[in-house]
């Protein structure tokens, strides 16, 4: 969706402001929020794309004014309610009002190192050969879906070159909305700066995205 998250090329935010000697967390609640997000996600009831979409669905004015861990808080609230783990009243009060969904699994403290080390790989066995090969000229499709997508607006309808065939990876656009998991070939596609940003762009710059096969057409 064309939400507040799709920031590439927007203007007016001012310079990047690096913070010298930045701490890992700026407050204890940020550390707890990170951990809650990881631990609740490990129950296995939503995909990374579903919770990303929950964050993207925050109205843009709010999205842009929240800190990143506040965005995570809002996203986690959404999926916990959607999957029946908590009601709005419970989230606001912090007290359980009864039972909720039974989790598939609960991440135990002793399992944390192994689970984090293993991660959640997204590559899958390919059902068909890749449509494109390295060096192919491709054009990204134009679309403005109301659902989740990982094709940013600035790179829609643009011609680029396949630089790398990454593998067959879980497809986010449908997986974000509860559909059974599917996978597609994933490519690194590189675009010349002027193709994306016009004649005034730096000709010695280029930008690549990771594009799933259905985002691409031959050019």
């Amino acid at each position, binding site marked *: 969706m064309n939400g507040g998250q799709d920031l590439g090329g927007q*203007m007016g935010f001012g310079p990047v402001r*690096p913070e010298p000697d930045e701490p890992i967390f700026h407050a204890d609640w940020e550390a707890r929020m990170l951990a809650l997000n990881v631990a609740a996600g490990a129950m296995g009831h939503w995909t990374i794309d579903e919770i990303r979409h929950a964050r993207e669905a925050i109205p843009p004015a709010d999205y842009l004014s929240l800190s990143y861990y506040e965005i995570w808080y809002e996203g986690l609230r959404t999926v916990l309610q959607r999957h029946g783990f908590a009601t709005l009243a419970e989230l606001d009060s912090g007290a359980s009002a009864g039972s909720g969904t039974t989790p598939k699994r609960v991440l135990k403290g002793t399992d944390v190192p192994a689970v984090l080390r293993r991660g959640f790989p997204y590559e899958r066995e390919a059902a068909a050969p890749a449509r494109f090969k390295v060096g192919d000229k491709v054009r990204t499709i134009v679309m403005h879906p109301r659902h989740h997508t990982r094709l*940013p607006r600035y790179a829609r309808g643009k011609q680029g070159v396949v630089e790398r065939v990454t593998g067959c990876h879980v497809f986010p656009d449908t997986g974000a909305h509860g559909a059974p998991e599917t996978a597609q070939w994933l490519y690194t596609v590189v675009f010349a700066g002027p193709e994306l940003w016009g004649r005034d762009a730096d000709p010695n710059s280029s930008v690549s995205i990771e594009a799933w096969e259905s985002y691409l057409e031959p050019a």
Partner: protein
Amino acid sequence: MSDHDHHHHHDHDHEHDNHFTPIEARVKALESLLVEKGYVDPAALDAIVETYETKVGPRNGARVVAKAWSDPAYAQRLKQDGTAAVAELGYGGRGGEHIVAVFNTPEEHNLIVCTLCSCYPWPVLGLPPVWYKSPPYRSKAVIDPRGTLADFGVTLPEGQRIRVWDSTAETRFIVVPQRPEGTEGWSEEELADIVTRDSMIGVGLPQAGARS
């Protein structure tokens, strides 16, 4: 907000609690609820925080870069399969299941961004800094990469191309900067000392003089 609070905006933030800000109170409520319902194990929360506070951080990536600078065969493996090469040093997993290392050359400089969220190679760089996740960087890096570097005080040599990698999938990128002059004969540990986090994102350049 009740009427009597109108002249006491600062107090409003603490209306529900004596000493927590609203977001602190909300996250505390969330944790209490999920623990009470048996959905999260408090020991798991502590272990996750400890991991990213003390075990996983940019020192991991610095060791990868230092090894690539010291060992051409390792650099070649890193180029071909980043995930397998960082696993040789014991790194990998959540937030970096598929790692691609991109090498700076005299001809081309690399810069990493995630315009859509905050994708970042956790196993080798740890958690991203706030600026990496914030609108100024996410908006500007793709449309004005050299201006973005200028915000960090970095100017590339004339004629060096710049390549921006937008992390739109679960692939995570790490920049392997060029080894600075004046580091001949240094050990991997000595080299790792000058490999900054920023240089592995592409917003900084390692300096031989940075080692104390």
